[in-house]
């Protein structure tokens, strides 16, 4: 069995690798170092020899220092780099300094963890063996939080209970940016994420919660509603959701995705 994880959940029970990863590690343990390096180099998930980042991390953490570990580490860092958004602004021409900082912060954090893990087992790396992409997503959030704050991004001034114009209302109709059929298309999802990023913070949070089926309003005190979480009236939330949907629709139409 592969070396067990030490990180514990909030309830005190240990984290485990997914079954799939465990058996992948078992299988990979039987191949040569050179073959492992070759396969770690494959970057397409669908490739038959593709090594999951979780398994790759396991081998990086458990390899003796030397050329083999170096090579595997390089491939692993590429997996992190693949999970940090591009630094190009929406215009496709200019580069955002903040995005660049976020990129570096995510990369640096991972290197810090590797270094710390080398000097003494660092159980924070265990998260990445459970779900690598989710762990990197958490790093992106950390970096976003720090760097966007530094840039002091101005958010659109929120109009309290601003009436939504009849024009906007008719433009939205029954438009739903999370239409299941559209969401099946990868390109659509890529553009949708970009469009959501560009929304003012308040609207962005409404949309993110809406996407996770959080109700706008609820009479059940145990159920968290968007209105309760954001501390705004149901009407304000609805107005801003509609505004957000109208912006998303417009942006996606411009990209020819709707």
């Amino acid at each position: 069995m592969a070396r067990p994880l030490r990180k514990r959940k909030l309830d005190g029970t240990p984290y485990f690798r997914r079954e799939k990863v465990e058996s992948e590690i078992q299988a990979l343990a039987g191949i040569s170092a050179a073959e492992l390096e070759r396969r770690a180099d494959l970057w397409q998930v669908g490739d038959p020899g593709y090594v999951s980042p979780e398994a790759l991390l396991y081998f990086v953490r458990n390899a003796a220092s030397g050329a083999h570990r170096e090579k595997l580490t390089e491939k692993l860092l590429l997996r992190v780099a693949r999970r940090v958004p591009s630094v190009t602004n929406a215009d496709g021409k200019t580069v955002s300094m903040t995005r660049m900082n976020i990129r570096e912060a995510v990369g640096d954090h991972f290197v810090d963890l590797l270094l710390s893990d080398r000097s003494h087992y660092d159980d924070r790396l265990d998260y990445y063996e459970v779900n690598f992409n989710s762990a990197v997503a958490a790093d992106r959030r950390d970096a976003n939080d720090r760097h966007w704050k530094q840039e002091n991004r101005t958010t659109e001034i929120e109009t309290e209970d601003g009436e939504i114009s009849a024009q906007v209302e008719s433009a939205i109709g029954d438009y739903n940016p999370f239409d299941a059929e559209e969401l099946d298309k990868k390109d659509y999802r890529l553009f949708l994420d970009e469009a959501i990023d560009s929304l003012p913070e308040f609207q962005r949070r409404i949309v993110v919660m809406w996407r996770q089926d959080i109700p706008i309003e609820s009479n059940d005190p145990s159920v968290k509603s968007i209105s309760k979480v954001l501390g705004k009236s149901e009407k304000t939330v609805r107005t801003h959701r509609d505004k957000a949907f109208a912006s998303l629709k417009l942006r996606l139409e411009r990209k020819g995705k709707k």
Partner: protein
Amino acid sequence: MGMQPQITADDVLRAFAMDFEQEHGVLQRYLAQYPEHSSALIDLSAELTREFDDDVPPSAAEFDLVAAGMVRLRENTATLKSLQVAPAKAFADAIKVLSLPMQVGLAFRERRIEVATLPRRVLTKMAEALQTSNETLLSYLALPPEAPLARARKSAVKPIAPEKVPFERVLQDAGVDEQSISNLLDGE
């Protein structure tokens, strides 16, 4: 009531990230349980659903990030201070590159080796494995020898001050065979 271990914002967010794909309604549950972290949880939820295009080949920018990371990993050489606080395991693991028993690694850690008797090649290999420079390892080994705390406590008799011994003696005490010892010492 027992003491509740301190749960940090980071603990909550990482746990949320790990639970996210597993079940429906995870955000709802975490918002109800940890209202103090709601903004961070919502923002993390957005990151967890972010799409990446895995079909395009790695870009130059991605390779740049990798290169920068590799430089940092290679340059992070252990300092004299970090060697002093390094766990015994670091030395036990390092000695494996020389295929020597763990006791020899511990002799390095406890600085029980006479530096003058240490073959250059062994020093270099060990420094590499400990991710430090030859100079730093030499400075470390030059510090007074030290008996590990645990061993001193277990001892029934008053422990005598540890002393530095020739490398050959360390190898003999660890049970390394004569042939291997002479290979190591003459392999200069």
